[in-house]
């Protein structure tokens, strides 16, 4: 197990370095980052001042090393627009985004797993067909549109829920459902297919023939094994969820990182954009690493000694 762990760790380090390189270079994509950050009518002196301030006159590799070294120490440069360290802004907004992502993930799991199990157990029933059709619709709906439709129905027409903002549970409901919808659909389909596969295995027949009650067979014998792919996908999807908050936060004026990044882009505040992208990618890597560890714990069958 240790060699696998070390290999995985080495991959993670490579990924982190790769991410820092991409994040560093992305503001150089357009050619001159200074022109990117300043409005079109900036004077020559202003351009030179910013270039000097950002260190753009140094060789690229020197700039990168400085960037990486600062990042390692948790310093991500200053926001041009807000004139404060970018990290400060991100940490201020991050809890809101995490709250939204976690809520969406919870809703998805709580709804989808039972639906998937019931669909698998009652395969071909009206319930199964209905929920799978629902899942197909859930997958086909852009989440931001679902958000808008919910605002139209529950806020504009019925007046039950507030349209935007953060603070109360009522404000969390719609953005979390909208963000979690496609995930719910995906998990329901996944749970169903995994359960179908597991339920057809021999040991389930053995358990049944022993005279165990059906729900024990399903919950203890089958579901436990179906859990592995679900956990893996849930972990992988968490990062995408954080990325997905970008649009949904805009729809619901949710004060999270996603909205911050959009505002930063429109303010041409690229150092801030760069920092946000880097931080979110790092969170994603960390979550994936944890999921891998969890996977190892959940599935003792897989040998991690061999090079796959």
């Amino acid at each position: 197990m240790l060699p696998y762990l070390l290999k995985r760790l080495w991959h993670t380090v490579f990924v982190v370095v790769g991410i820092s390189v991409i994040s560093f270079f992305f503001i150089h994509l357009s050619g001159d980052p200074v022109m990117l950050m300043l409005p079109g009518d900036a004077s020559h002196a202003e351009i030179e001042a910013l270039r000097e301030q950002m260190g753009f006159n140094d060789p690229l590799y020197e700039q990168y090393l400085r960037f990486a070294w600062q990042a390692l120490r948790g310093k991500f440069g200053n926001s041009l627009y807000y004139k404060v360290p970018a990290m400060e802004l991100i940490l201020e907004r991050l809890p809101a985004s995490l709250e939204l992502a976690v809520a969406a993930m919870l809703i998805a799991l709580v709804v989808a797993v039972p639906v998937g199990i019931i669909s698998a157990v009652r395969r071909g029933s009206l319930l199964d067909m209905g929920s799978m059709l629902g899942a197909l619709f859930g997958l086909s709906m852009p989440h931001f549109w679902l958000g808008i439709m919910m605002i139209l129905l529950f806020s504009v027409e019925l007046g039950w829920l507030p349209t935007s903002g953060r603070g109360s549970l009522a404000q969390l409901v719609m953005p979390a459902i909208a963000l979690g919808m496609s995930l719910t659909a995906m998990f329901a389909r996944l749970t169903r297919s995994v359960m179908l596969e597991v339920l057809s295995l021999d040991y389930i027949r053995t358990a049944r023939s022993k005279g165990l009650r059906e729900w024990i067979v399903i919950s203890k014998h089958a579901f436990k094994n179906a859990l592995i792919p679900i956990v893996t996908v849930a972990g992988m999807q968490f990062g995408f969820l954080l990325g997905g908050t970008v649009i949904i936060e805009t729809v619901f004026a949710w004060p999270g990182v996603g909205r911050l990044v959009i505002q930063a882009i429109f303010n041409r505040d690229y150092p801030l954009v760069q920092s946000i992208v880097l931080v979110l990618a790092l969170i994603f890597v960390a979550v994936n690493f944890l999921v891998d560890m969890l996977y190892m714990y959940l599935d003792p069958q897989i040998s991690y000694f061999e090079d796959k």
Partner: protein
Amino acid sequence: MNSATIAKSSLFEAIEPRLRFMAETLREVARRPSALAGGIMLALILAVSLGFPLVYPVDPLEQDLMARFTPPVWQTGGSWAFPLGADNLGRDVLARLLHGSRVSLLVGFSAVAVAELAGIILGLISGYYGGKLDSLIMRIADVFMAYPFMLLTISVIAVLGNSIVNLILVLGLSDWVTYARTIRGSVLSLKKKEFVEASRAIGTPHRVIITRHILPNVISPLLVLGTLRVANIIIWESGLSFLGMGVPPPMPTWGRMLAEGRIYITDAWWLVTLPGLAIMVTILSINLLGDGLRDALDPRLRNI
């Protein structure tokens, strides 16, 4: 027999089994009602998107300020001049939806083509040659996977500017990883097969082995993957457009229509409802077809 006919018949021989395979796949797909429905829906959408100027040649940009917020025809106050209503500038919603379909489909299919091309090339190289090159490509793939897709495309589009070509390239190139990984996996198992080893033993160049023996055998899962990804790309394109980073104005897109309509949500429900419905129907048809294709091509995956 002259050389031209020889070439022709050998070409036919090479293509014939693939054609038969495609026909069989199509028959398999058509046997499933949901997949058939998806296929027909998508064909209709494509036909409408290509052919609508013949039937409905209305300018999507023409403003008629007297007709602002005209509701759809079936509502009181609606008129046949604007079958699906008019927006805040009095532009025809139906015309805008039809023109928007072209953007979504063009970006969706082109970006997937870009992603497939990049993924196939890198996956083939990675799987076939193995070694250091393989690890390098796979580690780069890890890096791409670690980047939240939406954030990557948003930030790159923000820097590069939002032309339609940039959009296709950025969406396509951020999505190559899945294809590369799928291809690599198949190549790894395929290159150990006897017919490939036999071919190598008689000294066939790598280039020929890859294009003649490997590629044709690994391409079909990609077709499926691609179909399903078009749906995702269209959703992302409309999302970018919604955020103001899609195809530049004044070209109407479904995402931009949603963003503009959102401001008038209390007065004009059709401005926020119809573009989303258009996206959903398109994605639904692609998903239905994609599910059917996957079942037809890979019976093992049938229940997923």
